[in-house]
C-alpha cells in the first residue's frame, strides 16, 4: 500500500526537470529563432515599409505643407549611410559614434546610480514600515516634479555640464525604480513572510531570500520604465547643457539647419533606446524564470 501510494505520488509530478537549464544567450537565440519562424517578421516588415512609404509621400512626393520642410526617408538614409556625408554625420564618421557613446555612457551611469540607490531604498521602504513612514511624504512631493523643473538647480548644484546632465538623467529614472521596487515588496503575499519566520529565518535572510526575489518582477518592470525615463531626461539635459551626445546633436542640427541629421539622431535614439530596454527585459526574464515558467503553463 505504502509503495503504491508513493509511486502514484511521484507520478503526479510534472517532468519539467527534463528541460535544460538555459543561459541568457541561449534564451535570446531561441527567442530570436522562434520569432523568425513565425509569420511575425513579415507583418513587422509590412508595418515598417508602410510607414516609410507614407513618410516619403508626405515629405517628398506630395509635399504636404505640414511636412514639406522635413527630410524624406531617402534623403535621410542616403546621408546616414554616406561615405562622405554632407553634414558630417553618418555611420562612417567617428563623430557619430562619439555622440552615441557619450549619450550611452551618461544613461548607463545615471541608470546604474538610479538602480543602485532606488532598488535598495524601495525594497527597504516596502519591507519596513518605519522606513516608509519617514520617506513616503517626501517621496510623494518630489516624485511629481517634472524633470525639466530641476534643470536650473542641477546647473547650479553641479560643477560641470557632464555631472548636471547625469544628475538630470538619474532623477528621471530614480523615482520609477524606487516606486516599483516599493510596490514589488508590497505585492509579496504575507504568507511567504510568515512561512519564512516559521522556518526560522532571520531578518537578513528574509530580506535576501524573500523580499529581494519576491519583488524582482516589479523591480524589472520598474527598470524598464526607468531606462525609458533616463533616455527622455538625457535628451532634455543634453539639449540644454550638452556639448556632445544625441540630444545635443538634434538641437545643434536644428540651429545649423542640418535637418537630415535631426532625423538620423532621432532614429538612432530610438534604436539605442530599444536595445537598452531589450537588454533589461532579457536579463529580467532570465532572473525571473520561475515566474515565466509559471505563467507559461
Amino acid at each position, binding site marked *: 500500500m505504502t509503495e503504491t501510494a508513493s509511486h502514484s505520488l511521484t507520478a503526479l509530478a510534472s517532468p519539467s526537470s527534463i528541460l535544460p537549464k538555459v543561459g541568457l544567450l541561449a534564451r535570446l537565440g531561441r527567442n530570436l529563432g522562434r520569432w523568425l519562424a513565425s509569420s511575425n517578421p513579415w507583418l513587422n516588415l509590412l508595418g515598417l515599409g508602410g510607414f516609410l512609404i507614407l513618410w516619403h509621400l508626405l515629405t517628398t512626393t506630395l509635399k504636404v505643407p505640414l511636412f514639406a520642410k522635413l527630410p524624406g526617408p531617402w534623403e535621410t538614409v542616403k546621408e546616414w549611410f554616406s561615405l562622405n556625408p554632407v553634414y558630417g554625420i553618418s555611420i562612417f564618421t567617428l563623430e557619430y559614434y562619439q555622440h552615441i557613446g557619450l549619450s550611452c555612457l551618461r544613461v548607463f551611469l545615471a541608470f546604474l546610480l538610479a538602480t543602485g540607490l532606488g532598488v535598495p531604498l524601495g525594497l527597504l521602504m516596502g519591507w519596513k514600515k518605519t522606513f516608509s513612514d519617514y520617506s513616503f511624504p517626501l517621496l510623494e512631493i518630489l516624485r511629481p516634479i517634472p524633470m525639466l523643473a530641476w534643470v536650473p538647480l542641477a546647473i547650479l548644484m553641479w560643477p560641470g555640464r557632464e555631472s548636471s546632465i547625469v544628475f538630470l538623467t538619474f532623477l528621471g529614472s530614480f523615482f520609477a525604480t524606487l516606486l516599483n521596487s516599493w510596490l514589488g515588496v508590497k505585492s509579496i503575499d504575507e504568507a511567504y513572510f*510568515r512561512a519564512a519566520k516559521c522556518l526560522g529565518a532571520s531578518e537578513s535572510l528574509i530580506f535576501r531570500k524573500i523580499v529581494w526575489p519576491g519583488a524582482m518582477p516589479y523591480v524589472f518592470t520598474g527598470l524598464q520604465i526607468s531606462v525609458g525615463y533616463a533616455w527622455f531626461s538625457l535628451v532634455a539635459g543634453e539639449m540644454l547643457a550638452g556639448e556632445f551626445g544625441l540630444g545635443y546633436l538634434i538641437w545643434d542640427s536644428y540651429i545649423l539647419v542640418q535637418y537630415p541629421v535631426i532625423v538620423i539622431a532621432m532614429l538612432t535614439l530610438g534604436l539605442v533606446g530599444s536595445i537598452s530596454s531589450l537588454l533589461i527585459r532579457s536579463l529580467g526574464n532570465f532572473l525571473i524564470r*520561475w515566474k515565466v515558467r509559471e505563467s507559461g503553463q
Partner: protein
Amino acid sequence: MTRGGAISVRGATKVYDPDGARVIALDHCSMEIGAGEFCVVVGPSGCGKTTLLNAIAGFHELTAGEIHLNGQLLSSPSQPATPGSDRVVVFQNGALFPWMTIAENVAFGPMAQNKLEPKQAKEAALETLETMGLSLIANDYPGRISSGTRRRAEIARAMACHPQVLLLDEPFRALDALTKTVSHQFLMEVYDRERPTIFFITHDLDEAIFLASRVFVMTTRPATVKKILEVPLPRPRDFRLLASPDCQRLRAECQAAVRAEALKAFSVGERER
C-alpha cells in the same frame, strides 16, 4: 518515537478591534492536545479556528489566556509567542516560495536555522524528498507542479525542520477528491513516521475522522470547544476504513454537532472572514 510537543490552550481569548467594531474571535477557548496527537479542528466558517492556529504559530498575540507547549509558557497577552521552527505552519493557500525550486524550499528551514551548511541542507532536502516520494520534482519551481503535489511538497518543507508541532490550515481544501485521498495517505505516512503533534483545521468531516486521533468541534464565533470526539481507529489507516460502520457512526455524530453550530452561524448571518 514520539517527539511531538504537548499543547495546552487555557482560556484563550482574541478580540479583534480594528475600527471600534469589536469582534470576539476566540472566547475562553481551552484544549489539551497530547504529545504526538493528531488533532483535527472542525467548525463553521469564520469561527476562529485560524485565529487559534495563528496564536499557536505566533503570528498574533492573545487578548487573554495562555498557550503552553510542553508545560512551558508559549504565548500570553504580556508575552506573545514569536514564530519558530518548533511549530511550522502549512498554509491555507500554500506558501512554497515560488522563486525557489522544491529542493531549495525544503532546504530553506535547516539552512535558515544554521543547523546545516547550504550544501548539506540541499543534500538533506533531496533525501527528505526521496523518502516522501517527491524526488522527481526536486528541481522544479512550484509554479510548474500540480496543486496537490505542491501541498505535499509544503508538508515536506515543514517536516524538514522536524517540528514538534505541525499546524495545517485547511491544506487540502482546494484539491479534487482523488488528489485529496492521495494527500491524506501522504500525510498519514509522514505522521506515522515521525509522530509530530498535528493541529489540522478542516471543513471536511470525512477528512477529519479519517485523519484524527481526536476531533475538536468548535462552536460558532466566538469560538470555544463544543465537543471532543475520540477516534479510536487503529493506525496505520487505510482509505477503505471510511466505509466501516464505526467510521460512519463517528461521522454522523460529528456532523450533528457541526450542523447545529453551522445553523446558528447561518441564522446570525456570519460570513467567512
